[in-house]
Every structure is written in C-alpha cells, then in structure tokens.
C-alpha cells in the first residue's frame, strides 16, 4: 500500500498565462507538483492541457508568470524532463535499439537493451520502427524516455491512438515502472479512467483555468475493479461534462 508522502516540491507554476493570436489558452495558472507525484491533467480537447505540458517541458515559453523547476526558474528547454508524445516520434531510419539510445554516449547499447527489456521488447532491437504495432512503438518511446532516468516524465496523451486493450496494458506498465523509480510524472489525457488508473492526483482544465483538483486516494497497483475507482471516474467525468462557468477558487471535494 503506497501512501502519498511528499516533502519537496518539484515544479511550481506561478500565474502562468499563454495565448495564441488573441485567444487565451491558459490564464493565471498556479500549480504545485510534489516530487515523485503522479499528476494527471484532463479536460476537453483544446482546453489547453497539452499546452500546459509543453510549457513545463520548455518546448514553449509562457507569455506571463513563471515556472520553477526545483526552485529555479525554467528558461528554455527543461533538461530534467523527458517527454513522450502521442505520435511516438521514433526516427523511422533508426533501428529500435538506436532509437532508444538517441542522444546517449558511452555504453548506451547495453543500457538500451536493458531499457527495452523493461518494456518487453528486447527481442525487437534490430527491427525498423515501421515493423512495430502502435502499442509497441509507444513502448519503445517509453523506453527512450526512461533510459535518461529523468527527474520528470511528461506524457502527452501517449496512449490516445491505441486500442482499448493495449491502452490498459500500457497503463499498467507505466504505473509499474513509475512505482520502481518514483520520478515525478505528468500525464495529459482525455480519458478520465486512464487518469484515475495511474495518477495520485487529477486536475481538470476548463476555460484556461484549473477547474478541479482531485486527490485519488486508492491503493496501488490500481485496478479497475477496486472499491471507489468508478466513483472517482464518475465524479470527474460529471464535472467535465457539466456546462457553464468555473471558479478558479472552487476546488471540489469528492465524498466516497
């Protein structure tokens, strides 16, 4: 049974705002993420959840406010973070082994093999990415992210394009690997069930603001049949589907 014992803050967002061409995507976001915490960000498509992740990764910069990583202001690429994209983004001209070893030096081959072993693809090291299924590609992408032993793992809807069964398998794998190392993780997803299946805490973004901040107090490893699982899913889903305004100060409590 894993309880949430966080002492340090890994990432702090202070009044972060971001817009594109007169459209405000994120408005005055304040958020603290603790070291080792698994946070999920949900919301309707286009709500800005991916943008928030890209700001934390440093691939984009905020228009206002600031982001602190381990107390230091983030400027440019977040070097402690590794991101996993929805579309995998493996280099098609590199074999699996070389894809995983991207940007590494020294004994990267051995490390790549170990990383691939962890995601169950040790026997595919000499294949081209085109030969792999969608789920296998994402496993490779996960191995590629984790081989750097990042302090922060960012997951940008990594399972969005996979079928339901593969998705559940991948969620279990992501949780299992996270339990081993306890790096801080942020998962962006539109699938509330997925968020509840892996995260310690789920936030929901609506109209550029955090409209819900929900601790998921369920034992790990998570199971869909767990007591309380569906009630968390229902509550969050209901809140997402509810039309109308939000209040940033309103943080809802869920009673089980």
């Amino acid at each position, binding site marked *: 049974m894993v309880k949430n014992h966080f002492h340090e803050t890994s990432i702090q967002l202070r009044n972060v705002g971001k817009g594109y061409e007169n459209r405000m995507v994120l408005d005055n976001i304040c958020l603290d993420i603790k070291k080792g915490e698994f946070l999920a960000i949900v919301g309707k498509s286009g709500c800005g959840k991916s943008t928030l992740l890209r700001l934390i990764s440093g691939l984009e910069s905020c228009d206002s406010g600031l982001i602190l990583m381990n107390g230091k202001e983030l400027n440019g*690429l977040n070097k402690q973070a590794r991101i996993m994209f929805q579309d995998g983004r493996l280099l098609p*001209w590199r074999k699996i082994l070389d894809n995983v070893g991207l940007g590494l030096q020294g004994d990267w081959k051995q490390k790549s093999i170990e990383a691939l072993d962890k995601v169950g693809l040790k026997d595919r090291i000499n294949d081209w990415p085109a030969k792999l299924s969608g789920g296998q590609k994402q496993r490779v992408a996960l191995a590629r992210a984790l081989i750097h032993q990042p302090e922060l793992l960012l997951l940008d809807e990594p399972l969005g394009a996979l079928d339901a069964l593969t998705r559940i398998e991948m969620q279990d794998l992501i949780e299992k690997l996270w339990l081993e190392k306890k790096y801080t993780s942020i998962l962006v997803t539109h699938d509330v069930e997925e968020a509840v299946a892996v995260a310690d805490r789920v936030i929901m973004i609506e109209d550029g603001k955090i409209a819900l901040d929900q601790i998921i107090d369920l034992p790990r490893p998570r199971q869909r049949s767990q007591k309380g699982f569906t009630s968390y899913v229902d509550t969050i889903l209901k809140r997402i589907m509810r039309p109308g305004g939000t209040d940033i100060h309103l943080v809802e409590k869920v009673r089980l």
Partner: protein
Amino acid sequence: MKTFIKEAVKSIIPWILPFLLLLVWQILSFDGIISSRILPSPLAVLKAFLTLSMTGELFDHVSISLERALTGFLIGGSIGFLLGLFNGVFKWLELFTDTSIQMLRNIPHLALIPLVILWFGIGETSKIFLVALGVLFPVYINTYHGIRSVDKRLIEMGKAYGLKGVSLFLAVIFPGALSSILVGVRFSLGVMWLTLIVAETISAHSGIGYMAMNAREFLQMDIIVLSILLYALLGKLSDVIARFFERKWLKWNT
C-alpha cells in the same frame, strides 16, 4: 523451385521486347527493306563495336566522356548540395540567395554554350562547366526541399532529447532529407548525360559525342548508331547505380 522459376521468368520478361525489336530490325536490314544508308543492321553495329574495341579507340572515347561527366557531376552536385543544405538550414541565407538562384535556374543552361565557348574555348573546361551547371540546380532544389520538409515533430523530439546543432543534423535532418536528395541525384544524372552529349557534339576532339560527329563526316552509320547505344547504356548504368544506393540507404522505407 517454383518461386525460382517465377523469378527467372520475371527477370526475362523486360528483355523480350528489346530482343524482338532487334530481331525484326536485323531481318528487315538483311532483306534490304531498310537501306544501310538509313540504318545499319544490328550486326553491323556489333561489328563496329568489336573493331573499335580492338583498336582501343572506343575505350579512349568512353573513358574521356565518363571523366567529363563525373567531374562535372561532382563539382555541380557538391555546390548544389551545399547551397541546398545551407539555404535549407539557415533562413536568412535563403532570403539572401533564393531569389537569385531561382532566376539563374530558369535559364536553360545549354543556352550558355556560345558564351561558354568564348570564355573557355572548346577544351575540357567548357564541357565540365556545362555539366556542372546543369547538375547543380536539380540537386539544389531537391536538397533544399528535402531539408525543409523534414517532419517538424521529429526535429522537436530531437531537441527535447538534447540534440542540437551537428548532432541534430546528423540524427534527424539529414536522414529525413535523404530520400529527396537522392531523387535530385537521379534526376541530375539524366541532365549530366544530356548536357555532355550536346557539348561533345558541338565542340570536342574526343569523347563519344565527337566519335559520332566524326563518323557523320565519313558516313559511318554503324558508328553513329553505336554512339547512341553507348549513351543509352551509360545512362541506364548510372540509374542502376543510383537505385542501388537508394535501396541501401533508404532500407527503412521499404
């Protein structure tokens, strides 16, 4: 065994038509329906090939043509590749040079022949210059577009994984542009032979084109046809070589 026969038949089929054409040509020539003043028979061409090979004349002409073609190709191809590379990578350089390059590109390079002869005479330089000029633009355009059309998402991924500068170029940008660059190379090989034929026909003291023009003065039909066939053969050969490298380097794409 069955697949072996299938493969063998498959490799024979493309050659049936050329062989039949040769056969008909030979029969018509033999019957005198085609006059040898219009077109020599295939056997006469073969005889010319053997005679010229024996004297070593053929080898000299082919090797000098090949040398011109390759020298011009290497010079023009390198310049085109480097221009395409830098213009593809550095936006400000593209802004500076692209308009000029587009203007130059639209001049048919063969239109420069009178000028080139006045500049360089009819020596080696003029032919190599023309080939280089003809080859430059296809390589430039395809390299430039190849680099520009590399998947932006892969570049972003590379950056997020700590690649930058040369390492980003070698791991992501160049491999991503390679298939387009090779298309440019294959296209420019065609331009290479075309330019060389024209240049050698107009002004030369050696080479396949000269061999043909010289034969014209003595009405040696067989040698003229032999020259044309040699160009076809060399063109096909360079295409086969280019395809070989394409298959080797773009293995991931098949």
